[in-house]
């Protein structure tokens, strides 16, 4: 089951011509610079851009094809806007009910209490919209949309209009949704850290076109794409909780390339987690090092190398079936004879647990 989008639209000088396919579950990020047409694309999928032509298919439902297009209210879509769109004449509870009332409830429909819990709205239900903070509004707006029982959730930079504090409050709720929601989510953003944290799948956009799309880590570590070359180049590793060390307050994680220690997280053994490893936190050695404060070290094989400025190269490494990036100087490259196929040891200075 997939979500298939093939849409064309002209707006003045701007042309949108995009075709992509993402899995019908999990978070898929639509990622690209400002003005590349992310928002327009999302609006066209919802049927809000009247002149968009092409086709939209969500699972078995055809929302639009070359002959006809369903009106927005006929598409079981959920749209979370950049600026939360609650109805100011209703209180929070009535806003949530508005979402519930319009569409048929079926087995997939989330219960009212479930959504209220998921987004932490218990104490807000009786409040009026004008009294809510930006972050509270966005949470209520997301709940309203979830309660309308959508088949596809569209989120248009839901964090970008919020201040740093509200953002860090809202992010854990998005993590929760990431883990618990069964419906596919198309998440528009131009922030790479949100992509790494939330997305399972990535659709890369530029100037109204799809550059490429694929699983998140595959794209983050592709050396022909810009993400691998930025200062914040990073990779996402899927791991599982393996053991807890109560004495040192550490948690041991297991992934296909080895084991990693991180500051203790209170999750049961076996729980799946996402890790982010930045290219600049990874160094390479010919042998496993002793006498170092770095806890995490595992064997890797060099996969591919690409130029990264005059003095450095960026290297993609394989550890088990997962990829990560590092950047080394050309001098080190020569000294260690780093070339594709070479077996080395990676030391990782810092691992961030994402969700």
């Amino acid at each position, binding site marked *: 089951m997939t979500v298939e989008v093939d849409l064309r639209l002209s707006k003045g000088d701007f042309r949108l011509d995009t075709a992509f396919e993402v899995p019908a579950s999990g978070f898929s990020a639509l990622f690209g610079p400002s003005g590349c047409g992310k928002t327009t694309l999302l609006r066209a999928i*919802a049927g809000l851009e009247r002149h968009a032509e092409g086709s939209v298919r969500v699972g078995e439902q055809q929302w639009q094809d070359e002959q006809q297009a369903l*009106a927005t*209210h006929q598409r*079981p879509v959920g749209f979370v806007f950049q600026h939360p769109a609650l109805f100011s004449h209703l209180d929070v509870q009535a806003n949530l009910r*508005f979402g519930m009332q319009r569409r048929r409830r079926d087995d997939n429909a989330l219960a009212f209490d479930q959504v209220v819990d998921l987004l932490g709205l218990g104490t807000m239900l009786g409040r009026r919209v004008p009294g809510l903070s930006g972050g509270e509004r966005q949470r209520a707006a997301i709940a309203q949309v979830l309660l*309308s029982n959508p088949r596809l959730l569209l989120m248009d930079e839901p964090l970008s209009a919020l201040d740093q504090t509200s953002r860090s409050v809202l992010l854990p709720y998005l993590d929760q949704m990431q883990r618990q929601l069964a419906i596919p989510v198309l998440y528009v953003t131009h922030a790479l850290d949100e992509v790494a944290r939330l997305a399972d799948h990535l659709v890369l956009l530029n100037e109204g076109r799809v550059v490429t799309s694929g699983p998140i880590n595959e794209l983050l570590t592709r050396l022909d794409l810009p993400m691998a070359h930025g200062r914040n180049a990073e990779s996402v590793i899927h791991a599982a909780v393996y053991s807890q060390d109560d004495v040192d307050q550490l948690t041991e994680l297991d992934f296909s390339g080895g084991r990693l220690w991180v500051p203790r997280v209170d999750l049961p053994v076996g729980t799946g987690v996402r890790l982010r490893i930045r290219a600049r936190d990874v160094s390479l050695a010919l042998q496993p090092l002793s006498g170092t404060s770095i806890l995490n070290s595992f064997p890797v094989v060099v996969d591919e190398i690409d130029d990264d400025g005059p003095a450095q190269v960026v290297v993609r490494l394989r550890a088990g079936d997962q990829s990560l990036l590092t950047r080394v100087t050309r001098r080190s490259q020569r000294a260690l004879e780093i070339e594709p196929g070479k077996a080395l040891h990676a030391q990782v200075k810092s691992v961030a647990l994402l969700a």
Partner: protein
Amino acid sequence: MSGEWLSPGDLQALWLTLRLAAFTTLLLLIFGTPLAWWLARSHSRWRAPVEALVALPLVLPPTVLGFYLLLAMGPQGPLAGLSLAFTFTGLLLGSMVYSLPFVVQPLRDAFAAIGEQPLESAACLGATPFERFRHVVLPMARPGYVTAAVLGFAHTLGEFGVVLMIGGNIPGETRVLSIAVYEHVEALDYANAHSLSAGLLLLSFVLLLLVYTSRVRRRHAV
């Protein structure tokens, strides 16, 4: 002068005026809604001319308006067949033209203030166009409707020039308050002119007070 506050003739004029104002307001709210909606949201090149046309009664002397209405309703006019001149229906039609901007403009502003997003959001939540109007537009534009209703009503109460031209002075049919006051003054019956005028003044003041207090309350509600 009789012992009562208003003579039977004046009472009849008052009742007629209230009826005229009520019907005018009601019809304008009904027909003004789609017009105001169109003015608030259309990008058509006809929008500016239509807007100017709607605003004309604000600047034209009522007698000019009445004169053309009279021509239209007269034996050679396009509306001759309806025999509207000097009837309540004709007066109603004239009042609707005369009070049009007072109803349409507040509605237009209220619709424009809602913006695109609540409607798009409602559509994404599965609301049909009718449901969007009924459950989003109407409640959000309610202050605009209150203002439009009160202004339309109050403005029709004070109508004079148009009535003079197309209504004349037929008791129970077209003799409204303002005409009655004028008659009393003409007849040097200042006492009756006074009680009618004071009544109208008070009524208008109360109506406007209603609009402005509801506005202040709304501002403080937030």
